[in-house]
Structures are given as structure tokens and as C-alpha cells.
């Protein structure tokens, strides 16, 4: 591979070319209002990480009151001593956590916002928008997204939606308190005492969601168009890396599933602001008084529209994980992805089925038995493609010479963690079991196994894997391992006991952790404390990761090559710190994406972008530079 000097040559050349071809872009255009997919990807990534961390903090406050109901939370009152913002916090804490004791309202608020932020502001932006934006155009060998300005707009819509969502914490009403699902009619009568309808946490939630949805739609249109029309020469459909396939499929899910949620949000906004009663049945009472509404609506409509999005959304949460892992595992096992085509077809089937399983969230709504049966069948069916994906990844490991670096540890840990998440979901697919487990901690344990140790581990793997391309330096592998092992232990310490709690009958919305329901919970309350300690331990074990991300920008070991992991996909053909326009020469795909350990070759990998095994990546830009 090219030596350190060659790499430097790249940069020298590119800097020269850059100033030659374009006029210098100012700071604002370059870093803030950038149309470059890589900058936007990084913007999404950083915002996503911040949101993820914030959502995690909300959860830790909740875990305190679950473990120690009625005990003042340490540090809560001390917020008032902070410089500058202290005065504000004193007031806020007085309102929501008087004396540092978390109030039920605050618990509900944090519960609702934890779900919202993690799903719509944490994982989707990080997994789909950040990795998709940064990696996907590089991986298909193009210079940028098909619509760069729409891409920028997408990020700024997302940003506005984040500002509105966070602003709602500061409203006199506080943020929304009705769970992330916002079920009507509870969600509509909630905060009704507030007369100015536009100043509700709930109304702000709906507005923020409208912006968030618009951002997702712009993003997904852009992703699909780019993947279809801007692929490099020779990159046929079945030479696309699995990552790109997954991004394309996720885009379709977002594109087609989000609009019904927009409808749900608009109708709920209508109910709250314009007095309609889409979701409000006739004769609804609130606090002993009949509401001044026409009635005639049906809460079931909300749930249909909501879950029509929210089930495909589950796959939007998990598919980026599969996307990343299926690039990381072959690369570090030095084996081709086993059953690549089967995986692609499984992915497409999964996406299709994910649209017709939504009502398995609604078994308890009194929906017809015919519908229940239909949705049970589709729900059980959808486990087949999921198992195909997981099995292919596991077989890929078979007989490989595995490098257990940080990203590979996370990627391999993803497999059993997702496995547990998926298998614990099977019982929930049947309505007779769901009857007992619905709204218990079992459900919480199940889907957190899928998204927390599942998706988030894969996202970590992605960060460690592509960090060299983003910064030109490695992250510390030692810190990575110090990050991994405690994370794995604490994740299981949190979510394992939840499955047990759920089977006892712990309800997911208990503010006091079930102290009040002694006949159910007595003798089991210690699990609450165990889980809470797990959560705080998990928080501590993220410290090495945060340090690693920021310190490695300047202090990490420099990469000596553009392809530090010996990977085969096209993004590694671009120089580290890819310039605006990405590639020095137009990349061409000569073969499939996973040519590792090709028999009879000296080197154990054969990149897509190399004509012959011996041809190095061209170091000198040709006349076609910046095609």
C-alpha cells in the first residue's frame, strides 16, 4: 500500500487542486451551512451523539426515582448553584422537583422525552443520517449527494426540530408528558388547563415532529436518488455494498412510513388547536365534566396511523446496525460476506413485511379478531428475514482470521444482543401472550435489547471503523476496549433483569418503581436498584468513548494509508479527510464488494476499485481529476 509520503502527496495535491478549481469557501459555508455530504454527515453525527447522551441523562433521573422513590436526587438542588443559569434552574427545580424529589410529572415528562429523543433525535440521525450521509456517497464513488442543497435543508430542518423539542422543556407547562406514543385521548386532554394552545409542550412536540419528518423526507429522497443515479461506473446493483443497500431500503421505509405519522400529528394538532374531535369519542368526560367537543372520533385511528409509521421505524432503527456490522465483520474477519444476495433479498422482504405488521402493537385495543390473526401471521413471518440476516453474519465469522479490535468487538457483540432482542420479541407476537406482557418491563427489555446493545453497539462499531476516514487518525484501541467490556456488562445488567421484572408484572409507567403495588412486587424491588446501578455504570463506561472521540482528533495515531483496515469498498479509495468532491480520480467498480481472502492471491483482499491485485491506488491525480 502507499506509504506515508504518498498519503501526504495526496493531501498536497488535493489542497492545490482545491484552490485551483474553486474559490475559497468561507467559514460559514464550509462548516455551518455546508452542502458537502461529509460535513452534513458530521453535523448529524455530532448532534445525534449529543441528543443520545441527553436522552440517556433523562433516563438516569428516571432510574433514580424508580430505585429510590421519594428520596431527593443528589445534585438536583445543586443545579441552582451553577453560574449564569443557576437562577433559572432554581425556579425549574422548584416547579418540577421540589426539594430535589423528582415529581411524577417530571418522571412522565422525562419518560416521554427519553423515547422521543432516543428514537427521532438520537438513533435515526446517527445511524441513518450521519453514517448514511458520510459513507454512502463515498461508498458508491460519487462526488456528493444528488441534491446537495436539499441535504443542507434537511439538516437544518432537523436542527430546528431539535430546538423546538428542547425548548419545550422550558415552557411553563414543561415538555409533553404522555409517553412517546402520544396516545389519544390522554395526549389531547393532557395540559388542557393551559389556555394558550400554542404554548403547550404537546403542541411543540407536534410541531417539532413536523419539522423532523420533513427533514427525514428530504433526506430519504436524496439518498435514494443518489444511490440510483450517481453510482460509480461498474457499480451494478449486486456490486453495491450491503451498507448502501440497507441505506436505500431505510430511505424507502422513511419515505413511505413517515407521511402517515405526519397525518397523525396533523390530526392531533387539529384536535388540540382547532377543536376537532378526530380521536375523541362522543361523550368523553374529563375530571367529571363533559368536554366541549362534537365527538364521533375514534382513538383507534390515531393508533393505526401512529403504528403505521412506528413499526417500520423499528426497522429504521435496526437496519443501520445491520448495515454497519455487515461492513465491519467481513473486513475484520477477512472473509467475504456469506450469502450476500440472500441478505439483500432478506432485507427487501423485511422492508416489505415491516409495513404490514403494525397492528401487533394494538392487540389490546379491541381491534377485530380477524385483524389480530392477520397481524400475528405477518409478525411471525417477519422474523424469517431477520434470522437470515443474523445467520449470514454469523456464518461469515466461521473460519475467519478475526481481528478483535474495538469495532469488531462491538460488531460481534451486536449479534447475540440483537439475537436476545429478537427472540424475546417472538412471544409478544401472539396476542394471548401479549395480553399479559403488554406495557410491562418485558416489552421495555425486549425493544431495548434490540436498540441499545443492538443498534447502539453497531453505531459504536461504525464510529471506530470510519473514524480514520473522517479524521485521518485512528481512535485508541485500548480506550475502545475499556469502553466495550463495561458497556457490554452494564447493558445486560440493565435489560436482562427487565425481562424478569416484566414477567412478574412490573408496569412500565410506574413512577415509584412499583413500591405502591406491594402484592405484586414485594421481594423483587431489589431489581430496580440493580438496574439503576447498571444505568449509572453504563454512563461511566461511556467516558472513555467520549474522551477517545475528541482526543483522537489531534492525538490519535496517524493513518499511514487511505485504506487502514484493508477493506474492499470504494470509500477507502478516497484520500483520508476526503476533499470537497471526494476522489482524486473517478473510481470504477471492477467486482463485488466483499473480495476478502481470494484464493491464490498474495494479499488477502481485493478492493472493488482496483483493476488488478497489484495495481495500487493511483497516487497522482490524472487529468480527469474532479470529474
Amino acid at each position: 500500500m502507499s506509504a506515508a509520503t504518498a498519503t501526504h502527496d495526496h493531501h498536497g495535491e488535493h489542497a492545490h487542486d482545491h484552490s485551483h478549481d474553486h474559490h475559497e469557501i468561507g467559514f460559514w459555508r464550509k462548516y455551518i451551512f455546508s452542502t458537502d455530504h461529509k460535513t452534513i454527515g458530521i453535523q448529524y453525527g455530532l448532534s445525534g451523539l449529543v441528543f443520545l447522551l441527553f436522552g440517556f441523562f433523562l433516563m438516569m433521573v428516571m432510574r433514580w426515582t424508580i430505585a429510590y422513590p421519594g428520596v431527593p436526587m443528589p445534585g438536583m438542588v445543586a443545579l441552582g448553584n451553577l453560574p449564569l443559569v443557576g437562577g433559572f434552574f432554581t425556579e425549574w427545580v422548584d416547579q418540577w422537583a421540589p426539594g430535589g424529589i423528582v415529581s411524577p410529572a417530571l418522571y412522565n415528562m422525562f419518560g416521554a422525552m427519553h423515547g422521543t429523543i432516543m428514537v427521532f433525535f438520537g438513533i435515526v440521525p446517527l445511524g441513518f443520517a450521519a453514517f448514511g450521509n458520510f459513507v454512502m456517497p463515498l461508498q458508491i464513488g460519487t462526488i456528493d449527494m444528488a441534491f446537495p442543497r436539499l441535504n443542507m435543508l434537511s439538516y437544518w430542518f432537523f436542527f430546528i426540530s431539535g430546538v423546538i423539542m428542547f425548548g419545550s422543556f422550558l415552557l411553563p407547562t414543561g415538555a409533553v408528558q404522555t409517553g412517546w406514543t402520544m396516545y389519544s385521548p390522554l395526549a389531547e386532554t393532557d395540559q388542557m388547563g393551559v389556555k394558550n394552545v400554542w404554548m403547550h409542550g404537546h403542541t411543540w412536540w407536534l410541531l417539532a415532529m413536523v419539522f423532523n419528518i420533513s427533514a427525514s423526507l428530504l433526506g430519504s429522497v436524496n439518498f435514494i436518488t443518489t444511490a440510483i443515479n450517481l453510482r460509480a461506473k461498474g457499480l451494478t446493483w449486486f456490486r453495491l455494498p450491503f451498507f448502501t443497500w440497507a441505506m436505500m431500503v431505510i430511505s424507502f421505509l422513511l419515505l413511505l412510513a413517515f407521511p402517515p405519522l405526519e397525518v397523525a400529528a396533523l390530526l392531533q394538532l387539529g384536535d388540540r388547536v382547532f377543536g376537532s374531535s378526530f380521536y375523541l369519542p362522543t361523550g368523553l368526560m374529563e375530571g367529571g365534566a363533559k368536554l366541549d367537543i362534537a365527538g364521533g372520533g375514534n382513538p383507534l385511528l390515531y393508533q393505526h396511523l401512529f403504528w403505521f409509521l412506528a413499526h417500520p421505524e423499528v426497522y429504521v432503527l435496526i437496519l443501520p446496525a445491520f448495515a454497519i456490522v455487515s461492513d465491519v465483520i467481513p473486513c475484520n474477519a477477512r472473509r467475504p460476506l456469506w450469502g450476500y444476495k440472500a441478505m439483500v433479498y432478506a432485507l427487501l422482504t423485511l422492508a416489505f413485511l415491516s409495513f404490514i405488521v403494525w397492528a401487533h402493537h394494538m392487540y389490546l385495543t379491541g381491534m377485530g379478531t380477524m385483524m389480530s390473526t392477520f397481524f400475528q401471521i405477518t409478525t411471525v413471518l417477519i422474523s424469517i428475514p431477520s434470522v437470515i440476516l443474523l445467520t449470514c453474519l454469523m456464518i461469515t465469522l466461521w473460519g475467519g482470521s478475526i481481528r478483535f479490535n474495538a469495532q469488531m468487538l462491538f460488531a460481534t457483540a451486536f449479534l447475540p444482543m440483537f439475537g436476545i432482542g429478537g427472540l424475546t420479541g417472538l412471544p409478544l407476537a401472539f396476542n394471548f401472550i401479549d395480553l399479559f406482557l403488554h406495557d410491562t418491563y418485558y416489552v421495555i427489555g425486549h425493544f431495548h435489547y434490540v436498540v441499545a446493545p443492538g443498534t447502539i453497539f453497531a453505531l459504536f462499531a461504525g464510529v471506530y471503523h470510519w473514524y480514520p476516514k473522517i479524521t485521518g487518525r485512528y481512535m485508541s484501541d485500548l480506550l475502545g476496549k475499556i469502553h466495550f467490556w463495561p458497556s457490554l456488562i452494564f447493558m445486560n445488567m440493565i435489560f436482562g433483569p427487565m425481562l424478569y421484572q416484566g414477567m412478574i408484572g412490573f408496569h412500565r409507567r410506574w413512577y415509584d418503581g412499583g413500591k405502591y403495588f406491594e402484592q405484586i412486587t414485594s421481594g423483587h424491588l431489589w431489581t430496580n436498584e440493580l438496574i439503576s446501578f447498571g444505568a449509572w455504570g453504563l454512563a461511566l463506561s461511556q467516558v472513555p468513548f467520549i474522551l477517545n472521540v475528541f482526543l483522537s482528533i489531534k492525538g490519535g495515531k496517524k493513518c499511514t494509508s487511505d485504506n487502514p483496515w484493508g477493506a474492499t469498498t470504494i470509500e477507502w479509495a478516497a484520500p483520508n479527510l476526503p476533499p470537497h468532491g471526494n476522489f482524486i480520480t473517478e473510481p470504477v467498480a471492477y467486482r463485488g464488494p466483499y473480495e476478502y481472502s481470494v484464493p491464490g492471491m498474495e494479499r488477502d483482499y481485493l478492493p472493488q476499485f482496483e483493476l488488478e491485485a497489484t495495481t495500487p491506488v493511483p497516487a497522482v491525480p490524472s487529468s480527469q481529476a474532479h470529474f
Partner: protein
Amino acid sequence: MSADNHEDLQQHVQKYKKIGWLLAIFTVITVALSFWELPTHGLNIIVGMIVAAFKASLVGLIFMHLNHERSLIYKVLVFTLVFVIGLFVLTYYSHEHPLVFKDFDGYTSGH
């Protein structure tokens, strides 16, 4: 459509005008049909929707050039339509035992 030459386009323009008139005529028919009361109102709705679907297909096929488009676009649209129909049908049938138990008698005695 982009490769069309001058004469073809000229012919297309004539075709667009004709389709415009056809759409206007069918709008009149839609209005007239709605005042003609068929045995059930459900039939009226079905007939009205058939006419509307016909008009919509004229717009889609001729104005939006779907009569000769690339397969990729058909694929996208077919999937979308499948999901929309799924949304219609499945929400429709979930009214089998809606929250307002209209058939409560049948529910208790019949089963």
C-alpha cells in the same frame, strides 16, 4: 419524453388539449351522477370513485407521461400503491368490532 422531436411535441400539445376537454366532460358527468340516486348510496360512492379513478388515470398516464416511463418509477409507484391499499383495507377491517359496539347482541348471542 425528453428525446421527442418538434413534430411529436406539436402532436402531444393537441393531445393534451383533447384530454383537458375529456376531463372537463367527465367532471360534469361526476356531478350529474351524484344527483342520480342509485339503489344504495354505497353504489353511488363506488361509481363516483370509478369515474374519479378514470380521470386520475388520464392525468397520470398522459399529463404525467406514465404511459411510457422507466421501469424504476413503476416499481416505486407499485410499492407505494400496495402500501396505501394496505393502509385502507386494514384500517377498514379493524372496524369489525369498533369501540362503539354496534353489534353487541350478535357478539354475545351469536358466538
